[in-house]
Protein backbone atom coordinates (compact mmCIF):
# COMPACT_ATOMS: atom_id res chain seq x y z
CA UNK A 1 0.00 0.00 0.00
CA UNK A 2 1.30 3.40 -0.99
CA UNK A 3 0.52 5.00 2.36
CA UNK A 4 2.79 2.67 4.26
CA UNK A 5 5.69 3.83 2.16
CA UNK A 6 5.58 7.44 3.32
CA UNK A 7 9.03 8.10 4.68
CA UNK A 8 8.37 11.48 6.30
CA UNK A 9 9.93 11.52 9.74
CA UNK A 10 10.88 7.88 9.50
CA UNK A 11 13.84 6.71 11.51
CA UNK A 12 16.00 3.72 10.60
CA UNK A 13 17.70 2.59 13.82
CA UNK A 14 21.39 1.83 13.46
CA UNK A 15 24.77 1.95 15.17
CA UNK A 16 26.87 3.91 12.67
CA UNK A 17 29.03 6.87 13.82
CA UNK A 18 26.41 9.19 12.28
CA UNK A 19 23.66 7.58 14.33
CA UNK A 20 25.59 8.02 17.54
CA UNK A 21 26.47 11.70 17.00
CA UNK A 22 24.81 14.18 19.35
CA UNK A 23 21.53 15.20 17.70
CA UNK A 24 22.35 18.88 18.30
CA UNK A 25 25.60 18.44 16.39
CA UNK A 26 23.74 16.88 13.49
CA UNK A 27 21.16 19.63 13.48
CA UNK A 28 23.76 22.42 13.51
CA UNK A 29 25.78 20.67 10.82
CA UNK A 30 22.71 20.32 8.66
CA UNK A 31 21.95 24.02 8.92
CA UNK A 32 25.58 24.84 7.97
CA UNK A 33 25.36 22.47 5.03
CA UNK A 34 22.16 24.07 3.76
CA UNK A 35 23.70 27.54 4.08
CA UNK A 36 26.69 26.29 2.09
CA UNK A 37 24.34 24.91 -0.57
CA UNK A 38 22.89 28.35 -1.18
CA UNK A 39 26.21 30.20 -1.08
CA UNK A 40 27.88 28.02 -3.72
CA UNK A 41 27.98 29.33 -7.29
CA UNK A 42 30.50 27.09 -8.96
CA UNK A 43 30.53 23.51 -10.29
CA UNK A 44 33.51 22.58 -8.15
CA UNK A 45 31.85 23.73 -4.92
CA UNK A 46 28.84 21.54 -5.68
CA UNK A 47 31.12 18.64 -6.48
CA UNK A 48 32.73 19.12 -3.06
CA UNK A 49 29.34 19.35 -1.33
CA UNK A 50 28.14 16.24 -3.14
CA UNK A 51 31.28 14.40 -2.09
CA UNK A 52 30.71 15.43 1.54
CA UNK A 53 27.12 14.18 1.35
CA UNK A 54 28.22 10.90 -0.27
CA UNK A 55 30.81 10.31 2.46
CA UNK A 56 28.28 10.97 5.23
CA UNK A 57 25.73 8.69 3.56
CA UNK A 58 28.33 5.95 3.20
CA UNK A 59 29.34 6.24 6.87
CA UNK A 60 25.71 6.31 8.01
CA UNK A 61 24.90 2.97 6.26
CA UNK A 62 21.60 4.47 5.05
CA UNK A 63 20.77 2.89 1.71
CA UNK A 64 20.95 5.46 -1.13
CA UNK A 65 17.72 3.88 -2.39
CA UNK A 66 15.92 5.14 0.70
CA UNK A 67 17.11 8.69 -0.04
CA UNK A 68 15.93 8.47 -3.63
CA UNK A 69 12.53 7.32 -2.39
CA UNK A 70 12.32 10.46 -0.27
CA UNK A 71 12.82 12.54 -3.42
CA UNK A 72 9.88 11.05 -5.28
CA UNK A 73 7.18 13.33 -3.87
CA UNK A 74 9.11 16.48 -4.86
CA UNK A 75 9.75 15.55 -8.48
CA UNK A 76 6.95 17.90 -9.51
CA UNK A 77 8.48 20.84 -7.63
CA UNK A 78 11.87 20.05 -9.16
CA UNK A 79 10.53 20.07 -12.71
CA UNK A 80 8.52 23.21 -12.03
CA UNK A 81 11.54 25.06 -10.61
CA UNK A 82 13.75 23.94 -13.46
CA UNK A 83 11.30 25.07 -16.14
CA UNK A 84 10.62 28.42 -14.51
CA UNK A 85 14.31 29.16 -14.09
CA UNK A 86 15.07 28.10 -17.64
CA UNK A 87 12.57 30.51 -19.21
CA UNK A 88 12.68 33.47 -16.87
CA UNK A 89 16.37 34.11 -16.44
CA UNK A 90 17.51 37.02 -18.62
CA UNK A 91 20.76 36.63 -20.54
CA UNK A 92 22.24 35.41 -23.76
CA UNK A 93 19.52 33.50 -25.67
CA UNK A 94 20.38 30.01 -26.91
CA UNK A 95 17.06 28.91 -28.34
CA UNK A 96 14.05 31.12 -28.87
CA UNK A 97 10.62 30.42 -30.23
CA UNK A 98 7.47 32.51 -30.07
CA UNK A 99 7.67 34.39 -26.72
CA UNK A 100 10.01 31.91 -25.06
CA UNK A 101 13.73 32.37 -24.71
CA UNK A 102 16.00 29.74 -23.29
CA UNK A 103 19.17 31.41 -22.15
CA UNK A 104 22.53 29.99 -21.24
CA UNK A 105 22.24 31.59 -17.81
CA UNK A 106 18.77 30.12 -17.48
CA UNK A 107 19.98 26.59 -18.05
CA UNK A 108 22.82 27.06 -15.59
CA UNK A 109 20.47 28.57 -13.04
CA UNK A 110 17.92 25.78 -13.44
CA UNK A 111 20.64 23.17 -13.09
CA UNK A 112 21.99 24.70 -9.88
CA UNK A 113 18.52 25.12 -8.42
CA UNK A 114 17.67 21.47 -9.02
CA UNK A 115 20.98 20.30 -7.60
CA UNK A 116 20.44 22.48 -4.53
CA UNK A 117 16.95 21.18 -3.85
CA UNK A 118 17.95 17.56 -4.37
CA UNK A 119 20.89 17.87 -2.00
CA UNK A 120 18.88 19.86 0.52
CA UNK A 121 16.18 17.22 0.69
CA UNK A 122 18.69 14.40 0.78
CA UNK A 123 20.51 15.92 3.73
CA UNK A 124 17.33 16.57 5.72
CA UNK A 125 16.19 13.02 5.08
CA UNK A 126 19.58 11.79 6.16
CA UNK A 127 19.05 13.62 9.45
CA UNK A 128 15.64 12.10 10.13
CA UNK A 129 16.73 8.63 8.98
CA UNK A 130 19.63 8.58 11.44
CA UNK A 131 18.10 10.47 14.38
CA UNK A 132 15.12 9.29 16.39
CA UNK A 133 12.30 11.85 16.52
CA UNK A 134 12.66 12.01 20.28
CA UNK A 135 16.36 12.87 20.08
CA UNK A 136 15.59 15.45 17.43
CA UNK A 137 13.05 17.31 19.53
CA UNK A 138 15.34 17.12 22.56
CA UNK A 139 18.03 18.71 20.42
CA UNK A 140 15.68 21.47 19.29
CA UNK A 141 14.62 22.19 22.83
CA UNK A 142 18.20 22.37 23.95
CA UNK A 143 19.32 24.55 21.02
CA UNK A 144 16.39 26.92 21.47
CA UNK A 145 16.98 27.03 25.24
CA UNK A 146 18.23 30.65 25.22
CA UNK A 147 14.88 31.76 23.76
CA UNK A 148 13.24 30.82 27.08
CA UNK A 149 14.59 34.11 28.42
CA UNK A 150 12.45 35.86 25.80
CA UNK A 151 9.41 33.96 27.15
CA UNK A 152 9.20 31.72 24.11
CA UNK A 153 7.46 28.50 25.30
CA UNK A 154 10.31 26.29 24.08
CA UNK A 155 9.43 23.24 26.12
CA UNK A 156 5.79 23.33 25.06
CA UNK A 157 6.76 23.74 21.42
CA UNK A 158 9.11 20.80 21.48
CA UNK A 159 6.59 18.67 23.39
CA UNK A 160 3.98 19.46 20.75
CA UNK A 161 6.44 18.59 18.04
CA UNK A 162 7.44 15.28 19.57
CA UNK A 163 3.78 14.34 20.08
CA UNK A 164 3.01 15.27 16.48
CA UNK A 165 5.94 13.22 15.21
CA UNK A 166 5.01 10.34 17.48
CA UNK A 167 1.52 10.22 16.01
CA UNK A 168 2.43 10.38 12.32
CA UNK A 169 2.93 6.60 12.03
CA UNK A 170 -0.11 5.92 14.21
CA UNK A 171 -2.34 8.10 12.09
CA UNK A 172 -0.95 6.64 8.88
CA UNK A 173 -1.74 3.18 10.19
CA UNK A 174 -5.19 4.33 11.22
CA UNK A 175 -5.84 5.87 7.80
CA UNK A 176 -4.70 2.65 6.21
CA UNK A 177 -7.12 0.65 8.33
CA UNK A 178 -10.08 2.93 7.67
CA UNK A 179 -9.27 2.96 3.96
CA UNK A 180 -9.26 -0.84 3.93
CA UNK A 181 -12.52 -0.98 5.84
CA UNK A 182 -14.29 1.45 3.52
CA UNK A 183 -12.83 -0.30 0.48
CA UNK A 184 -14.23 -3.52 1.85
CA UNK A 185 -17.61 -1.80 1.78
CA UNK A 186 -17.14 -1.01 -1.89
CA UNK A 187 -15.85 2.56 -1.56
CA UNK A 188 -13.94 3.62 -4.65
CA UNK A 189 -11.15 5.85 -3.41
CA UNK A 190 -8.93 6.16 -6.42
CA UNK A 191 -10.96 6.78 -9.52
CA UNK A 192 -13.36 9.39 -10.81
CA UNK A 193 -13.06 13.15 -11.19
CA UNK A 194 -11.84 15.68 -8.67
CA UNK A 195 -15.21 16.29 -7.01
CA UNK A 196 -15.98 12.61 -6.83
CA UNK A 197 -12.64 11.93 -5.25
CA UNK A 198 -13.09 14.69 -2.72
CA UNK A 199 -16.49 13.24 -1.83
CA UNK A 200 -14.93 9.80 -1.51
CA UNK A 201 -12.69 11.22 1.21
CA UNK A 202 -15.58 11.90 3.61
CA UNK A 203 -15.89 8.26 4.76
CA UNK A 204 -12.17 8.42 5.39
CA UNK A 205 -11.80 11.78 7.10
CA UNK A 206 -14.75 11.65 9.51
CA UNK A 207 -13.61 8.48 11.31
CA UNK A 208 -10.00 9.67 11.18
CA UNK A 209 -10.79 12.98 12.90
CA UNK A 210 -12.98 11.28 15.47
CA UNK A 211 -10.22 8.87 16.34
CA UNK A 212 -7.59 11.62 16.41
CA UNK A 213 -9.67 13.60 18.91
CA UNK A 214 -10.26 10.48 20.96
CA UNK A 215 -6.53 9.77 21.01
CA UNK A 216 -5.70 13.35 21.97
CA UNK A 217 -8.17 13.15 24.83
CA UNK A 218 -6.78 9.85 26.07
CA UNK A 219 -3.21 11.11 25.82
CA UNK A 220 -4.05 14.26 27.79
CA UNK A 221 -5.65 12.17 30.52
CA UNK A 222 -2.69 9.79 30.60
CA UNK A 223 -0.23 12.69 30.88
CA UNK A 224 -2.22 14.31 33.66
CA UNK A 225 -2.38 11.00 35.51
CA UNK A 226 1.41 11.06 35.56
CA UNK A 227 1.42 14.58 36.94
CA UNK A 228 2.69 16.29 33.80
CA UNK A 229 2.56 20.04 34.29
CA UNK A 230 4.85 21.51 31.65
CA UNK A 231 8.58 21.99 31.47
CA UNK A 232 9.31 23.77 34.74
CA UNK A 233 11.66 21.82 36.97
CA UNK A 234 11.46 18.80 34.71
CA UNK A 235 14.57 16.62 34.53
CA UNK A 236 15.56 14.23 31.76
CA UNK A 237 16.41 10.60 31.80
CA UNK A 238 18.81 11.00 28.87
CA UNK A 239 20.99 14.08 29.21
CA UNK A 240 22.66 15.37 26.06
CA UNK A 241 26.44 15.77 26.26
CA UNK A 242 28.79 16.98 23.54
CA UNK A 243 31.72 14.69 22.91
CA UNK A 244 34.92 15.66 21.02
CA UNK A 245 33.55 13.96 17.88
CA UNK A 246 30.40 16.07 17.98
CA UNK A 247 32.36 19.31 18.31
CA UNK A 248 34.65 18.27 15.45
CA UNK A 249 31.65 17.46 13.25
CA UNK A 250 30.07 20.86 13.90
CA UNK A 251 33.35 22.70 13.37
CA UNK A 252 33.89 20.83 10.12
CA UNK A 253 30.43 21.72 8.88
CA UNK A 254 30.75 25.38 9.79
CA UNK A 255 34.23 25.54 8.21
CA UNK A 256 32.68 24.13 5.04
CA UNK A 257 29.94 26.76 5.07
CA UNK A 258 32.39 29.61 5.70
CA UNK A 259 34.88 28.54 3.02
CA UNK A 260 32.18 28.05 0.44
CA UNK A 261 30.74 31.42 1.41
CA UNK A 262 34.13 33.03 0.87
CA UNK A 263 34.55 31.30 -2.49
CA UNK A 264 31.03 32.39 -3.43
CA UNK A 265 31.92 35.96 -2.55
CA UNK A 266 34.63 35.88 -5.21
CA UNK A 267 32.08 34.57 -7.71
CA UNK A 268 33.26 30.99 -7.62
Amino acid sequence: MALRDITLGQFFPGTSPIHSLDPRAKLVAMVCYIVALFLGQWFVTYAILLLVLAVVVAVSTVKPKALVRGLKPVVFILVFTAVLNMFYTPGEPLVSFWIFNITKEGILHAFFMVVRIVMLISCTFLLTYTTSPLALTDALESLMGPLKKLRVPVHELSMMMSIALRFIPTLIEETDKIMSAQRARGADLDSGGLIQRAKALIPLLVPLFISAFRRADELATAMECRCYHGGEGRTRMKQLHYRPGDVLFMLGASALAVSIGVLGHFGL
Partner: protein
Amino acid sequence: MAAIIETRQLTHCYSQGTPFEHTALHAVDFSAGAGEYVAVIGRTGSGKSTLIQHLNGLLKPTSGQVLFDGADIWESKERTRQVRCQVGLVFQYPEYQLFEETVYQDIAFGPKNMGLEPEEVDRRVKQSARFVGLEPGVLDKSPFDLSGGQKRRVAIAGVIAMEPSVLVLDEPTAGLDPSGSAQILENIRTYHDEKGACVILVSHSMEEVAREAQRLVVIHKGSIPFSGPPGDVFAHGDELEAMGLGVPAMTRVFARLRSMGVDVPASVYTIPQARDAVLTALHRKGAV
Protein backbone atom coordinates in the same frame (compact mmCIF):
# COMPACT_ATOMS: atom_id res chain seq x y z
CA MET B 1 -17.64 -29.47 -0.44
CA ALA B 2 -16.66 -27.16 -3.28
CA ALA B 3 -14.38 -24.39 -2.08
CA ILE B 4 -15.87 -20.94 -2.59
CA ILE B 5 -12.70 -19.19 -1.57
CA GLU B 6 -9.17 -20.52 -1.36
CA THR B 7 -5.57 -19.40 -1.28
CA ARG B 8 -2.77 -21.26 -3.03
CA GLN B 9 0.80 -20.97 -1.74
CA LEU B 10 -0.05 -17.49 -0.50
CA THR B 11 2.97 -15.57 0.77
CA HIS B 12 2.90 -12.00 2.01
CA CYS B 13 5.81 -9.82 2.90
CA TYR B 14 5.39 -6.37 4.51
CA SER B 15 7.67 -3.37 3.77
CA GLN B 16 9.73 -5.27 1.26
CA GLY B 17 13.13 -3.71 0.68
CA THR B 18 13.33 -1.75 3.96
CA PRO B 19 14.92 -2.70 7.28
CA PHE B 20 11.37 -3.39 8.54
CA GLU B 21 10.82 -6.23 6.06
CA HIS B 22 8.76 -8.99 7.61
CA THR B 23 7.11 -12.06 6.12
CA ALA B 24 3.67 -12.52 7.63
CA LEU B 25 2.50 -15.54 5.63
CA HIS B 26 4.54 -18.44 4.27
CA ALA B 27 2.97 -20.37 1.36
CA VAL B 28 -0.44 -20.72 2.98
CA ASP B 29 -3.08 -23.04 1.49
CA PHE B 30 -6.43 -22.12 2.99
CA SER B 31 -9.89 -22.90 1.73
CA ALA B 32 -13.49 -22.53 2.84
CA GLY B 33 -16.52 -24.19 1.27
CA ALA B 34 -19.81 -22.54 0.33
CA GLY B 35 -22.04 -22.42 3.40
CA GLU B 36 -19.29 -23.55 5.75
CA TYR B 37 -18.62 -21.99 9.16
CA VAL B 38 -14.86 -21.82 9.62
CA ALA B 39 -12.95 -20.34 12.53
CA VAL B 40 -9.40 -19.07 12.16
CA ILE B 41 -7.48 -19.04 15.42
CA GLY B 42 -4.05 -17.78 16.23
CA ARG B 43 -2.18 -15.47 18.57
CA THR B 44 -1.66 -11.78 18.01
CA GLY B 45 0.85 -11.39 15.18
CA SER B 46 0.36 -14.92 13.85
CA GLY B 47 -0.73 -13.61 10.43
CA LYS B 48 -4.47 -14.17 10.71
CA SER B 49 -5.41 -10.55 9.94
CA THR B 50 -3.04 -10.56 6.98
CA LEU B 51 -4.65 -13.73 5.66
CA ILE B 52 -8.20 -12.40 5.81
CA GLN B 53 -7.26 -9.13 4.14
CA HIS B 54 -6.16 -11.19 1.16
CA LEU B 55 -9.52 -12.88 0.89
CA ASN B 56 -11.23 -9.80 -0.53
CA GLY B 57 -8.28 -8.27 -2.29
CA LEU B 58 -7.31 -5.55 0.19
CA LEU B 59 -3.77 -6.86 0.22
CA LYS B 60 -2.03 -8.15 -2.86
CA PRO B 61 -0.11 -11.41 -2.43
CA THR B 62 3.67 -11.11 -2.67
CA SER B 63 3.43 -14.52 -4.32
CA GLY B 64 0.73 -17.14 -4.68
CA GLN B 65 -2.93 -16.87 -5.60
CA VAL B 66 -6.32 -16.11 -4.08
CA LEU B 67 -9.23 -17.79 -5.84
CA PHE B 68 -12.91 -16.92 -5.46
CA ASP B 69 -15.31 -19.34 -7.14
CA GLY B 70 -12.34 -20.92 -8.86
CA ALA B 71 -10.97 -17.76 -10.53
CA ASP B 72 -8.11 -15.51 -9.46
CA ILE B 73 -9.40 -12.34 -7.79
CA TRP B 74 -6.55 -10.27 -9.26
CA GLU B 75 -7.45 -11.15 -12.86
CA SER B 76 -8.72 -7.64 -13.57
CA LYS B 77 -9.60 -4.47 -11.67
CA GLU B 78 -13.29 -5.13 -12.27
CA ARG B 79 -13.00 -8.63 -10.84
CA THR B 80 -11.32 -7.35 -7.67
CA ARG B 81 -14.13 -4.87 -7.11
CA GLN B 82 -16.75 -7.54 -7.67
CA VAL B 83 -15.07 -9.84 -5.21
CA ARG B 84 -15.05 -7.07 -2.59
CA CYS B 85 -18.85 -7.04 -2.72
CA GLN B 86 -19.02 -10.85 -2.59
CA VAL B 87 -16.58 -11.28 0.28
CA GLY B 88 -17.70 -9.06 3.16
CA LEU B 89 -14.98 -8.19 5.64
CA VAL B 90 -15.70 -6.87 9.12
CA PHE B 91 -12.56 -5.47 10.68
CA GLN B 92 -11.54 -5.49 14.30
CA TYR B 93 -13.29 -2.71 16.23
CA PRO B 94 -15.44 -1.88 13.18
CA GLU B 95 -17.31 0.80 15.14
CA TYR B 96 -14.40 3.20 14.52
CA GLN B 97 -15.27 3.26 10.82
CA LEU B 98 -18.76 4.71 11.17
CA PHE B 99 -19.03 8.13 9.57
CA GLU B 100 -22.57 8.94 8.38
CA GLU B 101 -25.13 11.18 10.02
CA THR B 102 -27.60 8.41 10.70
CA VAL B 103 -27.38 4.70 11.30
CA TYR B 104 -29.56 4.14 8.25
CA GLN B 105 -27.18 6.02 5.94
CA ASP B 106 -24.17 4.23 7.35
CA ILE B 107 -25.63 0.80 6.76
CA ALA B 108 -26.67 1.92 3.26
CA PHE B 109 -23.12 2.96 2.31
CA GLY B 110 -22.06 -0.50 1.10
CA PRO B 111 -25.22 -1.35 -0.89
CA LYS B 112 -25.16 2.13 -2.48
CA ASN B 113 -21.58 1.60 -3.57
CA MET B 114 -22.73 -1.59 -5.27
CA GLY B 115 -25.01 0.56 -7.43
CA LEU B 116 -28.30 -0.99 -6.26
CA GLU B 117 -31.75 0.55 -6.74
CA PRO B 118 -33.02 2.69 -3.82
CA GLU B 119 -35.81 0.21 -2.98
CA GLU B 120 -33.31 -2.65 -2.87
CA VAL B 121 -30.97 -0.60 -0.68
CA ASP B 122 -33.89 0.14 1.66
CA ARG B 123 -34.85 -3.52 1.87
CA ARG B 124 -31.29 -4.57 2.63
CA VAL B 125 -30.75 -1.91 5.27
CA LYS B 126 -33.90 -2.93 7.12
CA GLN B 127 -33.18 -6.60 6.79
CA SER B 128 -29.60 -6.38 7.98
CA ALA B 129 -30.65 -4.16 10.89
CA ARG B 130 -33.05 -6.94 11.86
CA PHE B 131 -30.29 -9.55 11.49
CA VAL B 132 -28.09 -7.79 14.04
CA GLY B 133 -31.01 -7.01 16.34
CA LEU B 134 -31.21 -3.23 15.95
CA GLU B 135 -34.57 -1.67 16.81
CA PRO B 136 -36.16 0.21 13.88
CA GLY B 137 -36.09 3.40 15.99
CA VAL B 138 -32.29 3.32 16.09
CA LEU B 139 -32.00 3.77 12.31
CA ASP B 140 -32.64 7.53 12.48
CA LYS B 141 -30.19 8.18 15.30
CA SER B 142 -26.60 9.32 14.84
CA PRO B 143 -24.25 6.34 15.12
CA PHE B 144 -22.10 8.36 17.50
CA ASP B 145 -24.88 8.50 20.10
CA LEU B 146 -25.07 4.72 20.46
CA SER B 147 -23.38 2.47 23.00
CA GLY B 148 -20.24 0.55 22.05
CA GLY B 149 -22.08 -2.72 21.52
CA GLN B 150 -24.74 -1.08 19.36
CA LYS B 151 -22.13 0.74 17.27
CA ARG B 152 -20.46 -2.59 16.62
CA ARG B 153 -23.78 -4.04 15.47
CA VAL B 154 -24.35 -1.12 13.12
CA ALA B 155 -20.90 -1.68 11.62
CA ILE B 156 -21.57 -5.39 11.14
CA ALA B 157 -24.96 -4.61 9.61
CA GLY B 158 -23.15 -2.32 7.16
CA VAL B 159 -21.26 -5.31 5.78
CA ILE B 160 -24.17 -7.77 5.99
CA ALA B 161 -26.27 -5.32 3.94
CA MET B 162 -24.03 -6.10 0.99
CA GLU B 163 -25.29 -9.71 1.31
CA PRO B 164 -21.87 -11.26 0.80
CA SER B 165 -21.67 -14.97 0.08
CA VAL B 166 -18.56 -15.10 2.26
CA LEU B 167 -18.64 -13.13 5.52
CA VAL B 168 -15.29 -12.67 7.22
CA LEU B 169 -15.20 -11.24 10.74
CA ASP B 170 -12.01 -10.27 12.58
CA GLU B 171 -12.56 -10.67 16.33
CA PRO B 172 -16.15 -9.43 16.26
CA THR B 173 -16.55 -9.87 20.01
CA ALA B 174 -13.33 -8.15 21.15
CA GLY B 175 -13.98 -5.82 24.05
CA LEU B 176 -17.65 -6.73 24.52
CA ASP B 177 -19.20 -8.14 27.69
CA PRO B 178 -20.29 -11.81 27.67
CA SER B 179 -23.93 -11.09 26.85
CA GLY B 180 -22.96 -8.66 24.07
CA SER B 181 -20.58 -11.26 22.59
CA ALA B 182 -23.20 -13.98 22.77
CA GLN B 183 -25.69 -11.78 20.94
CA ILE B 184 -23.27 -10.89 18.17
CA LEU B 185 -22.32 -14.54 17.70
CA GLU B 186 -25.99 -15.45 17.53
CA ASN B 187 -26.59 -12.75 14.89
CA ILE B 188 -23.75 -14.15 12.81
CA ARG B 189 -25.13 -17.65 13.16
CA THR B 190 -28.55 -16.44 12.01
CA TYR B 191 -26.98 -14.89 8.93
CA HIS B 192 -25.09 -18.10 8.23
CA ASP B 193 -28.18 -20.30 8.59
CA GLU B 194 -30.68 -18.11 6.75
CA LYS B 195 -28.50 -17.04 3.82
CA GLY B 196 -26.45 -20.21 3.53
CA ALA B 197 -23.37 -17.97 3.48
CA CYS B 198 -19.86 -19.06 4.25
CA VAL B 199 -18.67 -17.49 7.52
CA ILE B 200 -15.02 -17.14 8.46
CA LEU B 201 -14.63 -16.11 12.08
CA VAL B 202 -11.26 -14.94 13.36
CA SER B 203 -10.83 -15.31 17.06
CA HIS B 204 -8.46 -16.29 19.80
CA SER B 205 -11.12 -17.50 22.17
CA MET B 206 -11.18 -21.28 22.03
CA GLU B 207 -14.48 -21.60 23.88
CA GLU B 208 -16.08 -19.27 21.37
CA VAL B 209 -14.85 -21.04 18.24
CA ALA B 210 -15.49 -24.49 19.70
CA ARG B 211 -19.17 -23.62 20.12
CA GLU B 212 -19.63 -21.88 16.78
CA ALA B 213 -17.52 -23.32 14.00
CA GLN B 214 -17.73 -26.51 11.98
CA ARG B 215 -14.04 -26.42 11.22
CA LEU B 216 -11.04 -24.80 12.86
CA VAL B 217 -7.94 -23.51 11.13
CA VAL B 218 -4.97 -22.79 13.38
CA ILE B 219 -2.47 -20.18 12.22
CA HIS B 220 0.92 -20.03 13.82
CA LYS B 221 3.86 -17.91 12.63
CA GLY B 222 2.39 -17.46 9.16
CA SER B 223 1.49 -21.06 8.36
CA ILE B 224 -1.30 -23.52 9.16
CA PRO B 225 -0.15 -26.38 11.41
CA PHE B 226 -3.63 -27.85 12.07
CA SER B 227 -7.03 -27.67 10.46
CA GLY B 228 -10.11 -29.80 10.88
CA PRO B 229 -13.24 -30.31 12.99
CA PRO B 230 -12.91 -28.85 16.52
CA GLY B 231 -12.52 -32.27 18.15
CA ASP B 232 -9.58 -33.22 15.93
CA VAL B 233 -7.81 -29.89 16.41
CA PHE B 234 -8.28 -29.90 20.18
CA ALA B 235 -6.79 -33.39 20.32
CA HIS B 236 -3.47 -31.58 19.70
CA GLY B 237 -3.84 -29.92 23.13
CA ASP B 238 -0.16 -29.92 24.06
CA GLU B 239 1.00 -28.47 20.75
CA LEU B 240 -1.70 -25.78 20.94
CA GLU B 241 -0.60 -24.82 24.44
CA ALA B 242 2.98 -24.65 23.25
CA MET B 243 1.84 -22.13 20.59
CA GLY B 244 0.31 -20.02 23.32
CA LEU B 245 -3.26 -21.02 22.46
CA GLY B 246 -5.39 -22.55 25.14
CA VAL B 247 -7.85 -25.38 24.65
CA PRO B 248 -11.39 -25.37 26.06
CA ALA B 249 -11.61 -26.24 29.76
CA MET B 250 -13.42 -29.52 29.00
CA THR B 251 -10.63 -30.66 26.69
CA ARG B 252 -8.10 -29.95 29.42
CA VAL B 253 -10.09 -31.99 31.96
CA PHE B 254 -10.19 -34.93 29.58
CA ALA B 255 -6.49 -34.65 28.77
CA ARG B 256 -5.79 -34.87 32.53
CA LEU B 257 -8.07 -37.88 32.83
CA ARG B 258 -6.25 -39.60 29.98
CA SER B 259 -2.87 -38.90 31.52
CA MET B 260 -4.20 -40.48 34.74
CA GLY B 261 -4.89 -43.62 32.71
CA VAL B 262 -8.66 -43.28 32.30
CA ASP B 263 -9.89 -44.55 28.92
CA VAL B 264 -11.76 -41.49 27.52
CA PRO B 265 -11.56 -39.87 24.07
CA ALA B 266 -9.21 -36.86 23.60
CA SER B 267 -11.53 -34.95 21.27
CA VAL B 268 -14.09 -33.76 23.85
CA TYR B 269 -14.73 -30.01 23.97
CA THR B 270 -18.31 -29.33 25.07
CA ILE B 271 -20.22 -30.22 28.22
CA PRO B 272 -22.80 -32.52 26.49
CA GLN B 273 -19.94 -34.41 24.82
CA ALA B 274 -18.21 -34.69 28.18
CA ARG B 275 -21.36 -36.06 29.78
CA ASP B 276 -21.71 -38.71 27.08
CA ALA B 277 -18.05 -39.66 27.24
CA VAL B 278 -18.15 -40.02 31.01
CA LEU B 279 -21.33 -42.13 30.85
CA THR B 280 -19.82 -44.41 28.19
CA ALA B 281 -16.68 -44.87 30.24
CA LEU B 282 -18.72 -45.68 33.35
CA HIS B 283 -20.90 -48.14 31.42
CA ARG B 284 -17.81 -49.93 30.23
CA LYS B 285 -16.64 -50.30 33.78
CA GLY B 286 -20.04 -51.63 34.66
CA ALA B 287 -20.56 -48.97 37.30
CA VAL B 288 -23.88 -47.69 35.96
